[in-house]
């Protein structure tokens, strides 16, 4: 007979497990990205550490841990030291609401998607702290750009993520995934016209929210060297990197859940999480593919794209989705 555990114990355990899985995922998804990019550029990529470079991420992590931790003399020490953690926490928190299979997740909140979107834009606080606290002109410019960009792209991001919410009629991520089960054509990406448009705008907004090329004006190493993290080294740099990739993985999970039917797929139900993982990797590779094929666009062009094109488009899409939903449920 099992001892009755207080309800918070499984929550803590599952949270711990998810956190560690995410960290493991991050280390290996960087290897995947490097291999993928290498293939695009007719190179081999990491190959020396372990068979086919499989131990490369571990070597990288060890290297970063052993590096000297440098704090610039002119930096605002408290803000500078706190920034990587403030940046990392929201990037990790977004995994809390994602159900990896029916009922398998940390907390499938009723307002799951709202929580996800709200928390994921909190990373800007850490970003700005890093940029400001470094007391470096490149970092400061980068932080300014970060605020500009996140404000501009969060609205299109939210609007395109709300299209599946409207189609489902629930903010709970578990419900959104459940509606898309059964057939391939239940996936929202195959919803006539609206689904595809929403998917495209979602990918574009994700690119911007994740600071990937062509929207990586925060990092912009050709003009700002490394942007907000130019002064960071060692483990603090690793934390920022970890947060960034965790955010990318989280957004890819969200995209796979909202548009690609989450854990639906052939085979027994136990394979659900595997399908979900594969779809996440697909989303990630789409982003990576775009990243390694485009040149970066300028800050004013990024803002113009958001406010003049993406925002009106997603708003119109959201309204038309609402009209379609009402019409299909016989509301008129």
């Amino acid at each position, binding site marked *: 007979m099992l001892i009755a555990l207080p309800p918070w114990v499984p929550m803590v355990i599952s949270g711990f497990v998810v956190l560690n899985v995410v960290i493991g995922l991050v280390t290996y998804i960087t290897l995947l990205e490097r291999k993928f*990019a290498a293939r*695009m*550029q*007719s*190179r081999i990529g990491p190959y020396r550490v372990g068979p086919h470079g499989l131990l490369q991420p571990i070597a990288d992590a060890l290297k970063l841990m052993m590096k000297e931790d440098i704090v610039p003399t002119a930096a605002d020490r408290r803000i500078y030291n706190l920034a990587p953690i403030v940046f990392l926490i929201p990037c990790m928190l977004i995994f809390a609401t994602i159900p990896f299979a029916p009922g398998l997740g940390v907390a499938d909140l009723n307002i799951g998607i709202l929580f996800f979107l709200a928390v994921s834009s909190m990373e800007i606080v850490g970003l700005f702290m890093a940029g400001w606290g470094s007391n470096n*002109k*490149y970092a*400061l*410019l980068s932080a*300014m*750009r970060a605020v500009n960009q996140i404000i501009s792209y969060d609205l299109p991001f939210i609007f395109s993520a709300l299209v599946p919410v409207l189609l489902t009629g629930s903010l709970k991520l578990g419900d959104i995934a459940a509606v898309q089960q059964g057939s391939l054509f239940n996936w929202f990406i195959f919803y006539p016209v609206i689904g595809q448009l929403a998917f495209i705008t979602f990918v574009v907004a994700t690119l911007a929210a994740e600071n990937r*090329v*062509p929207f*990586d*004006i925060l*990092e*912009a*190493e*050709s*003009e*700002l*060297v490394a942007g907000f993290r130019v002064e960071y080294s060692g483990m603090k740099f690793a934390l920022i990197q970890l947060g960034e990739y965790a955010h990318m993985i989280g957004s890819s999970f969200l995209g796979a859940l909202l548009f690609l039917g989450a854990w639906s797929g052939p085979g027994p139900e136990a394979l659900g999480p595997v399908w979900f993982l594969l779809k996440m990797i697909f989303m990630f590779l789409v982003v990576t593919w775009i*990243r*390694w*094929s*485009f*040149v*970066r*666009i*300028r*800050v*004013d*062009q990024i803002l113009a794209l958001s406010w003049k094109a993406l925002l009106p488009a997603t708003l119109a899409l959201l309204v038309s989705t609402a009209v379609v939903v009402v019409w299909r449920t016989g509301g008129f």
Partner: protein
Amino acid sequence: MLDQNTTTRVEMDWSGPERLQMNMGPQHPSAHGVFRAIVTLEGETVVAVDAVIGYLHRCHEKLSETLTYAQYPSIASKTDYVAAMTSEFAYVMAAEEIGKFEVPKRAQYLRVIVAELQRIASHLLWLGTWCMDMGGALGGGATIFLYCIRERELILDLFEALVGARLLYGFFQVGGTRYDIPDGWAQKCRETIAVIESRVDEYEQMLEDNAFFLARARGVGVVSRELAQDVGIAGPLLRGSGIDYDLRRNAPYSSYQDFDFTVPTEKDGDCYARYKVRMQEFRQAVAIIRQALDKLPAGPISSRPALKSVAQIRIPKGEAYARVEGPRGEVGSYIISDGSAKPYRMKWRGASFSNLAILPHIIPGHKVADVVAIMGSVDPVFGEVDR
């Protein structure tokens, strides 16, 4: 540090409250060597730029006074190390002009072949680094860069087979060339230029169908026809601003009059026009190499007798200026000879040095990101700027 009286600032009329002075270089990912730009920013907009050069000065002109006419050509290649053949070419031409040396026809054709191969190699490196300036080392720019490096490698292999070196050659000598092409080299060269011709088409498709690339290159860094003439820029920059001027056609040297080629020009004067000019120059260079290989005459490769000592060639008293059309524009060398085995005085005219003077005129008013794009489109090589 910078004397305000001696530096001219080109500023925009702006009454914003706060300005930020930011230092880009000499150690910066997009400094293209060791360029230092002190930019004054209003938010993201550049209002003034101070260009500081001189970090790579190696006393080349003084050095040439200590080296004989047989020794210096291989050192001359170190002025512009991206297009090493060009500066060797200019040096030996000036020496030949004073000494009235006859250059055999075969040597002239070989010189044209390596000069045009060098143009392709240099433009490939330019395209790669320029895209990297715009697209980042962690983005699409790096992809183009690696493709370009892959093709440049083919040309370096050709040079290696010819000379034994991959970067700094010493192929030229006063009176001709030092090496003849080895067996099978001409065939290998034909194959290589065929590959490059097809790859240039690929790059054009990849870049010109890309809205982001066009957004970054079109209308950025416009150099008007008048400004181009006033500042005295040369090469693809000049032709990008609508001035139809190319030394290979306007003042033919080394039998360039034997070949049939066109001089591409564009009207707009922006980064995209400079890009278009260089892309067409790839094709023209390929066409010239093909013709030169077809018509390559037999005969000696040098009129210079074999030497027992490096100080054996002496050039009569006199002075001459010789110029060639390098990948970056007019590269000239001025030699004053006092009749000994070494020049009395030698002066370089570097194309990058003159082209760089355009930057303070066109950068103000652009965003920070455009600074690197414009700088990349000018294609400076700092070995040639500082010398």
